[in-house]
């Protein structure tokens, strides 16, 4: 709970998502991966998005940068970034928007780095493309960038496979902040790493965020990590947001049974028997209703959805 709350609560959202719907088109039918999702992120705010694998949270991240590929497609809703309509951008505009305005740290650093290019060249690519620097100038800045994430600049000449997992992820983070974007998407940035390295990486991100002041969309299934880092958060299930509130509120009083299960809460002593920890045992929620505000800034999908809880 050490996060600085100073920048929280700005009324000018950096990112505003309304009723975003993403479908995967199959040969004979399509499935909805993200279903009418809305949220916004303020300037300097860290917004967490939690949920199990396959709930659609990474799809949202990719949708924001318009990285979705066939058969996935955005079939409804809007994404606005700093007042601009992301979904209406033309290719060249989109290309400039990427990484300059929004950058992303992908789940696995090993797979997101080009195995046949040196780390240096992969950073230089960013500067020469977006900032128009010469190669020499780009290399100088790349070295600074590596120092920022405490990697020896000599590593510029290294290939991805020559770095440790933690170092690779730090290099990717360095790349992400290269152009000082106003929003950074972290898509499970520490999943593939061991606990000690995880802590280092998170500390690194917190430090950079304090220094550079960017907003963050933080995606993870690790609730403790999320509560620790985020100002506000949303919990997703089956392509829908079931609950959203300040992180500390959700931590203190999760309302939706699914959130409770994620937080490892105990079942209530009275009321209907709800298998809270039984997410793996075939508990399904269906027809999740729209969010309703139950207390200031705390929205929950109403409980009638529970009727569909028993399979």
């Amino acid at each position, binding site marked *: 709970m050490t996060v600085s709350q100073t920048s929280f609560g700005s009324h000018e959202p950096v990112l505003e998502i309304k009723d975003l719907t993403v479908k995967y088109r199959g040969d004979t039918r399509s499935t909805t991966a993200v279903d009418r999702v809305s949220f916004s992120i303020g300037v300097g705010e860290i917004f967490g998005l939690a949920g199990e694998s396959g709930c659609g949270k990474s799809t949202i991240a990719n949708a924001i940068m318009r990285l979705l590929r066939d058969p996935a497609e955005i079939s409804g809703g809007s994404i606005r970034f700093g007042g601009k309509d992301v979904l209406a951008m033309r290719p060249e505009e*989109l290309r400039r928007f*990427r990484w300059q305005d929004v950058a992303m740290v992908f789940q696995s650093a090993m*797979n997101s780095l*080009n*195995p*046949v*290019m040196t780390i240096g060249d992969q950073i230089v690519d960013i500067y020469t*493309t977006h900032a128009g620097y010469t190669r020499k100038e780009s290399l100088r800045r790349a070295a600074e960038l590596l120092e920022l994430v405490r990697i020896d600049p000599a590593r510029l000449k290294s290939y991805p496979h020559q770095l440790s997992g933690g170092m690779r992820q730090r290099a990717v983070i360095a*790349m992400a902040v290269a152009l000082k974007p106003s929003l950074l998407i972290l898509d499970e940035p520490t999943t593939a790493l061991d606990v000690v390295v995880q802590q280092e990486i998170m500390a690194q991100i917190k430090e950079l965020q304090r220094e550079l002041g960017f907003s963050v969309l933080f995606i993870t299934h690790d609730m403790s990590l999320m509560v620790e880092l985020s100002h506000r958060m949303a919990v997703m299930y089956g392509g829908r947001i079931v609950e959203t509130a300040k992180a500390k509120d959700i931590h203190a009083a999760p309302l939706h049974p699914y959130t409770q299960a994620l937080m490892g809460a105990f079942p209530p002593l009275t009321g209907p028997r709800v298998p809270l920890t039984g997410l793996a045992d075939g508990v399904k929620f269906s027809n999740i209703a729209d969010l309703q505000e139950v207390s200031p800034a705390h929205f929950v999908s109403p409980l009638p959805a529970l009727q569909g809880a028993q399979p």
Partner: protein
Amino acid sequence: MRFILRRLGFYLIAFWVSITLNFLLPRFMPGDPVSRMFARTQDRMQPEQIEALRKLLGVDDRPIWEQYVGYMHNMVTGQMGVSISRFPTPVTEVIASQVGWTLLLGGTALVIAAVVGNLLGILAAWRRGGAIDSALPPFLIFIGSFPYFWLAMGALYLFGVTLGWFPIRHAFSDTIEPSFSWEFMSDVGMHLVLPALTIVLVSVGGWMLGMRNTMIATNAEDYITMAEAKGLRPGRIMFRYAARNAMLPSVTSFGMSLGFVVGGALLTEVVFAYPGVGYQLLNAVQGLDYPLMQGLFLTITAAVLLANFLVDILYVRLDPRVRAN
């Protein structure tokens, strides 16, 4: 380095196998073809030449292991006997006069096919469902289904005999003296067009499809998504990120396909009476020239192995991950 040494060892084994095969074939095949050859050609030869050939081909009273050791020694030191169809030229000399033409034909065709095929593959994968991707593969598969020699026959008939655009046989005109003059070179070039075109046509589809399919797999990699997220220009993503990685399996198959190209070149040479090792090999077979046959087989094998080794060295330069271990 260890990778290179391991590959080198492997090629040496492969070469040893081909020498051994050469050694065993005339000795253990039914029907005794070698005696037939001697019966046909004996009267033209000196006694010591007959003796040398007997040793080479195993019509010989020494114990088999002694023959084997002697044979290995002869092959390694390049003593492959004399050619019978081109009597009394030594086999090595006959081969030396042919090998350049095959290198020219095979090399030209291979490089053109690989470059064009890979570029088409890259473009097809990059624009899935576009014109190149949907129309070209079935067409090229169809062209690739024709036997090399048949396409060669068709090209010869159409462009050589009927239209008369290109010469139909040999590597250069009989009327021109070989020299480094422009006249001679352009004559060689004209003679090269049809045979090379045939090989390119048959093999380009394989390159294209191979590259296309690896490109499609590569395009699904996270680092391509990241490159897109980085807002790089499409051309740069296509070549520096996608194709650069997809190329690696292509380089490996480049070495593998050399053997096929040699085979294709062989048949094409026969159709165009192109004076390379393939054409010579057929002549040797028809003339029951077993020493020349063996020498040619060994030469071709050695060339293919050497080319593979060069490709390995190239591969190490292209893939930093191999360099490390």
